[in-house]
């Protein structure tokens, strides 16, 4: 009697377990399929530039001239690679100090006000569509730069400024979480030794959370690296390495979005754009590895 009762009790349990397991496995299988297919698709298209159209990889990565319609067509993507790196790194340079200060303010200085009001406002930035950023950039930042600095207004500076606002929530959120996760004992110990709040933040809090803060920056750069629309609207899109921050330049993403729809699938010009996408994807992998490496260095 008791045994059969136990069995009946165990049954729904096992069924739940089984359903959960199958559901999770299906989700994982679907995810992996998607990722593998995307990588396969981009790689097969991107690599055909080299194998089918016989463009050399070194020419693509180090060439300075991009002229897919030229006679003969020339594919040098270095200006795009340069543009992508300079805009995203400059964006991180602008955004990182702001994000750190915001995080320190929210956790250490005014936790109540900061967490209740400031954090939702900053996170709200992540929800604004990129076309809105692009349009604001084009209507406000570009005319401002054109009036204030010598040059055209469009360019790496405008792109980086727009991107820095876009990656602010990424870096801030990660920095805030890292600061919040810091054990109380560390800070209390520092106060007990007689240090001021500033000394505690500067000597204890920031050095301990540095790997997490770096993770935030790298994720921010990765996000900036992949952003297409907003950058394309404000950067000017000339396929050259610019002489100043206020001269028309190009990024990998802006080159792709600008021409992908206008080129026929399978043509050399189209394949070359897929190669740019492949470079972009490769760079994202590199960023992910850097993040994993930084995570491994965490001191807590």
């Amino acid at each position, binding site marked *: 009697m008791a045994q059969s009762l136990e069995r009946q009790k165990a049954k729904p349990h096992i069924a739940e377990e089984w359903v959960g397991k199958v559901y999770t496995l299906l989700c994982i299988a679907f995810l992996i399929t998607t990722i593998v297919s995307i990588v396969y698709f981009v790689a097969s298209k991107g690599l055909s530039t080299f194998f089918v159209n016989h463009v050399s990889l070194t020419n693509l990565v180090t060439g300075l001239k991009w002229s897919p319609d030229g006679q003969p067509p020339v594919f040098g993507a270095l200006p795009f690679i340069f543009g992508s790196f300079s805009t995203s790194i400059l964006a991180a340079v602008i955004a990182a100090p702001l994000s750190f200060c915001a995080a320190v303010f929210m956790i250490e200085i005014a936790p109540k006000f900061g967490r209740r009001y400031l954090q939702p406002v900053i996170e709200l930035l992540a929800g604004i569509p990129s076309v809105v950023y692009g349009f604001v950039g084009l209507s406000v930042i570009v*005319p401002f730069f054109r009036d204030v600095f010598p040059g055209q*207004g469009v360019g790496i500076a405008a792109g980086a400024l727009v991107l820095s606002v876009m990656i602010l929530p990424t870096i801030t959120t990660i920095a805030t979480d890292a600061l919040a996760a810091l054990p109380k004992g560390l800070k209390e110990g520092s106060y007990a030794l007689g240090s001021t709040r500033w000394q505690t933040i500067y000597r204890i809090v920031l050095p301990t959370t540095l790997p997490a803060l770096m993770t935030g920056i790298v994720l921010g750069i990765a996000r900036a690296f992949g952003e297409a629309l907003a950058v394309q609207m404000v950067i*000017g899109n000339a396929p*050259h390495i*610019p002489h100043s921050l206020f001269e*028309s330049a190009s990024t990998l993403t802006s080159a792709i979005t*600008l021409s992908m*729809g*206008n*080129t026929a699938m399978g043509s050399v010009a189209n394949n070359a754009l897929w190669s740019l996408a492949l470079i972009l994807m490769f760079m994202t992998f590199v960023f992910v590895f850097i993040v994993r490496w930084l995570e491994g260095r965490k001191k807590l």
Partner: protein
Amino acid sequence: MLLMVLTLTVALAACGQKNNSSNGGNASEGSSLSGSFLASGSSALQPLVDQVSKKFMDANSGVSVQVQAGGSGTGLTQVSEGQSQIGNSDVFAEEKLDAAKAAELVDHQVAVVGMAAVVNKDITIDNLTKQQLVDIFTGKVTNWKDVGGNDQKIQIINRPSSSGTRATFEKFALGQKSEDLQGSIQEDSSGTVKKLVGETPGAIGYLALSYLDDSVKAVKYEGVEASADNVANGTYPVWAYEHMYTKGEPDAAIKAFLDYMMSDEVQNGDVVELGYIPANKMQVKRDVDGNITK
């Protein structure tokens, strides 16, 4: 896993095919038409196709037309590979696809778009010759004073080198390809080009006639004003056909749609209203190589 994707793709493709093949049948009257088809491609042509397809669907409840933008290249590729039934394009198929693929497509020229060089309103000149335009867009002339204007730097606002609008402008206004110059700005959409030309001191760009308004100044080309009439009678050379390609001869529903597109109701109504020039108003014809016949 790849297999799974493949099966899915095949299944989806099969669904698509089923839809398409159901268009056939006899249809002498509009009301008995049925089927669904997709028109994709040129974003310059999309507003017209969109508007006409809505009217067409109101009149023929059995037909469903979907319109997608995505660029001329995408439109031509998709119609050539059977992913869509109509490919909208600003350029001849021969210019984007290889000859064998282009030969399978049937061209339907539904409208004409004229283009004008536009400059910032502060520029004093109002006429540019072909040679002057070539000098400007190839970077030989970088200051407006060299073409008769004030002492001001020229800022080129271009379209991406793959764009159909740029191809038309280069072919018929410049007569040659131009390179992307250091410091030139390239924008994808006509709206952005107009905004930048209107705002940037010393800017020059080019726009379809339907986009012209008070914020920019259209300049004459070799002394001829860019107007619909001048395009139609052949005196203004910078224009291009808007093509709607089908693969082979279209079936009944698509044919009815294309016929409706060419009807006087649409040609004199929607086409003009949206700023295109009706195809049947053209007194000159042009072939794929650019040869003009009366």
